[in-house]
């Protein structure tokens, strides 16, 4: 099942930039680990996953605002902030 394994595509989806050495290493290691997963392909498994749920069915709370950290606490741990807001590189190009 591991055919089609594309390290460049996975790195892009994962938002990771890998060196050629890392790509070679991870490709080899992931192939070995995924090979170990083949036991799942050959197993006789139930069709229902209900028994897999260790989380309770009712595990959703009401969508009601509650207490949260204030802007000061949030911007204090942010990598960069200005005027009480988190700053990031420009998202929208002026020219566009």
């Amino acid at each position: 099942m591991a055919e089609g394994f594309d390290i460049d595509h996975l790195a892009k989806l994962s938002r990771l930039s890998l060196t050629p050495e890392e790509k070679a290493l991870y490709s080899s290691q992931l192939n070995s680990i995924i090979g170990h997963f083949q036991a799942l392909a050959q197993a006789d498994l139930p069709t229902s996953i209900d028994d897999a749920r260790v989380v309770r069915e009712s595990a959703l709370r009401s969508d009601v605002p509650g207490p949260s950290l204030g802007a000061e606490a949030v911007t204090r741990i942010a990598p960069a902030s200005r005027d009480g807001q988190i700053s990031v590189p420009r998202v929208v190009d002026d020219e566009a």
Partner: protein
Amino acid sequence: MAETLHTLSAAELGRRLTAGALTSRALCEALIARYDVLNEKVGAFTHLDRANVLAQADASDARRQAGQGRGPLEGIPVAIKDNIAVKGQPLTCSSKMLASLVSPYDSHVAERLRAAGAILYGRLNMDEFAMGSSTENSAVRKTFNPWDLTRIPGGSSGGSAAALAAGLVPLSLGSDTGGSIRQPASHCGVVGLKPTYGLVSRFGLVAFASSLDQIGPMARSVEDCELLLAALASADARDMTCFSSDERALTAAGEAKKLRIGIPKGFLGKGVAPEVAAAVNAAIEFYRAQGCAVSEVELPSADLAVPTYYVVATAEASSNLGRYDGVRYGHRSAQASTPVEMMTNSRSEGFGAEVKRRILLGTFVLSAGYADAYYNRALRARAKIRAEYLAALSQVDVLLTPTVPTPAFKVGEKAADPLQLYLEDIFTIPANLAGLPALSVPCGQSGHLPVGFHLVGAPLSEAKLLAAGRLFEAAHGFAHQQAAL
């Protein structure tokens, strides 16, 4: 007295504090003095704010003086794994990604410990984001096994276990996603409990794999472990997977000598070191001699546990770690002119090799064209494993196996082969997949290295596991053991 305080149990320290024979300040000063001598050697802690610890100790002593003591943990230091939030203290997960993060809030367990009067004592080293079984994946420092400083302490809660074995603290908190409390407890000769999924709130625990993660107590005796668990376990509306007050009826311990003990067929065979098998077999014979009914049970899908776990855990990790994008907190790359570059470069610079490996793997098993073959099949395998465990636990009270197949290995020995390292967790993983409570108790040695056995019970049967552990502990000399350093 100060030179022997580190050898005492939390229960005994509590008695002395209550009797007025000891102050929390004197206790903390003694432990800080020991830390100053030993931490560089063992590497259990990544951070200790001495002034903050002593201020907490003084406040505790003042409460006690005023007759306002808060219970058995009043004035007792509890060290905390560095993925559990304590307001005003570092929360690095032993990762470069969070190297400068100071938590702006308390986890639920930190609130509970404060309410119990405990001293929140220092930050403990771990595998980065709790991914690993040796604490070698920490970006901060190495932690060494106090019983043999050339060997790993286990992981990912390696700092939590090593701190206990070195007598640096009487109690610690770990987190357990696939064995991360129990495996280091076994390697360091201490006691570790992974509670039933939902017994302890995960609010303030940095998420790795949310359907598997649990915070749990670690100590040098079963009694101390029980003491700490009592403080941690309570309802919390901020973690909706945490049992509400009326759902958390714990099964009564019953009489330990009447427990029915199941030995999973084949678990003491292939891959288990002879000394480990001998120590665990001796524990089985002990229970039999006490009057426990010992029988063999079948867990036919046990071989699926490791692949199932590494699909489910990495899938959840790849999603949970998506939040580290360099925007709101954590490392932000200086080399970025666009938001996508900022995210990619921040993640590439901030995460270590094992975290990247698991994100890539989790992304693969969830990706279009592969999710059915891997993630969805793993969920079905998880259902099967859980059903088999619950069926076995309807026949017996507890399942007994080794905690880890082999004793602690040399630092660096398995670093190049992640698959070999993943197989360390073969006995501990099923309890996480099935949401069951599990306890590791020291039961012997392989040469000079500790060996532990592992008990798994039905949901909310912690009292039975602890009663079984206490029965063994009372008849053997492994409780309160510490390495000579």
